[in-house]
């Protein structure tokens, strides 16, 4: 319970930030980009399902490394990242730059506008 109260402000702030970004970016295009870049490894189904990557359903405001049943890298578990617009943007741009010993094989999405669209789409997954 303590953990919940400790994380609640961050969760709300993350969701708010993502929602704000969602308005500026194109979530529909983000969904298309997600299918092309992310869907092989990540599910967004409401029935939480991990693949080789963890479920991204309700990722907005979530603390990294907290999906039950998924084996995260030690680096991700120790990262204390809260997934909001800024952290997702940095991670999607170059995962290895954020977590050099992380296990995600994705090499990154170089275009800022595409990242914004994907983040906007992720914000809709609530």
């Amino acid at each position: 319970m303590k953990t919940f109260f400790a994380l609640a402000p961050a969760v709300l702030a993350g969701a708010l930030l993502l929602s704000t970004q969602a308005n500026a970016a194109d979530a529909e295009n983000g969904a298309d980009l997600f299918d092309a870049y992310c869907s092989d490894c990540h599910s967004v189904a409401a029935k939480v399902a991990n693949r080789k990557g963890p479920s991204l359903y309700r990722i907005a405001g979530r603390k990294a490394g907290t999906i039950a049943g998924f084996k995260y890298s030690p680096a991700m578990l120790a990262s204390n990242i809260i997934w909001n617009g800024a952290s997702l943007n940095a991670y999607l741009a170059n995962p290895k730059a954020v977590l050099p010993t992380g296990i995600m094989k994705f090499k990154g999405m170089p275009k800022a506008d595409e990242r914004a669209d994907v983040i906007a789409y992720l914000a809709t997954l609530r």
Partner: protein
Amino acid sequence: MRILSAFSQRLWQIAFAAVCLLGGAMPAHALPSYARQTGEPCTSCHVGAFGPQLTPHGRAFKIGGYSDSKDDAFRAPLSGMLVANWTHTKKDQAEALSGHDGTNNNVALQEASVFVAGKIAPHLGSFIQTTYSEIDRATAFDHADVRYTRTLQAAGKDLILGLDVNNNPTVQDPFNTVGAWSFPYTASDLTPGHLTGAFLTGGLEHQVLGTSVYAYFDDHFYAELGGYRSLKAGTLKTLGIEDEAGRLSGTAPYWRLAYTRDWNRQSVSLGVIGMNASIHPGRENGPTNHYHDIGIDASYQYLGDRKNVFSVNIAQIWERQTLDYAVFAEETDKAHQKLRQFNADVSWYHNNSYGLTAGIFRVSGTRDEMLFTPEPDAGSRTGSPNTSGYILQADWTPFGKESSWAAPWANLRLGVQYTGYSKFNGAKTDYDGSGRNASDNNTLMLFSWLSF
């Protein structure tokens, strides 16, 4: 001796025709055990939500050793598969190809397979198949591919190193262009087989044990080098496999180079592949038949949003043969022969469910009236092995998506396939010397393919 050698040569021809080109019934493989292991739907790894055509993600899974998984939980790496079909040729065959089937319009449970397929240990995975054929009324060890891989860093890039053990050259190949996993991915065993094909594409299928090492650098450069040795006749018998190819003289080298590029929405591959093999037909010491194969291949996939996928696969193989054994056995007086084999296919899958595929194939080789003789259905009046034609396929894969019924426990493909011949064993008309035309072998096949 001559009778034995002629018999072995005929066995080789029949085996090749039956196993490699037309009746090969390329075992199908969208295996739910992999889906359970990774948590991914069939669509992640397979074009059209069903095997064996791999997406770039599926290629990475295979190159990575079949061992990527969503967690550390143990899951039995077991799957099963049933392939049933109905086969109609334009004209009845002179004789039934099996004692259990007629000369036309046959229904068969062509394959009932069990697989040990998936992660065995960290970095170690397998694809091992055993198959019962209702046509043969027999069970036999089928494709086997076991690999161990590690990922290192070299010059700041990923370098995957792998050690592979398999029983069929090309079964380990991560591309769908040459040999074991090329189109057609399923074909009827109950049609007349043409005389020959490139040795690389099935000439040693299940007759050998091979080891190769491979490297995949920066998701771009693939290199593999390996060698094969024959399994002993007693081992083949134990495994339920017919001793068809003879005995390799020493080790047969196999090599593969490829370049791949994946832009997420599109991917391409370009490659070269080769193999040398010297065979003692009939396994006795003495002269050999030598085959030197080299091929080039390419593939393209438009994956888009992963729901509608367009793909192209192309391969050309050149083969030089030095048939010292066949000359010694007086099967031919042409020791040096050549063969070329070309195949290409184009497919479109809509919504990962509805597929259309068109393919063409052509085999051409040295004309040899001694080696290729007239015989009803399977022979050559002209002494030419040249065969060409096309394959059209339409199929429906109702499951295999994340939200599908029974996912990730079962998948199904239903399809219709038509094979048309413009030339068969060297001629368009009366190719066998018994009045049969190439088009008489045109084949309509309906198939049902279930994996679970």
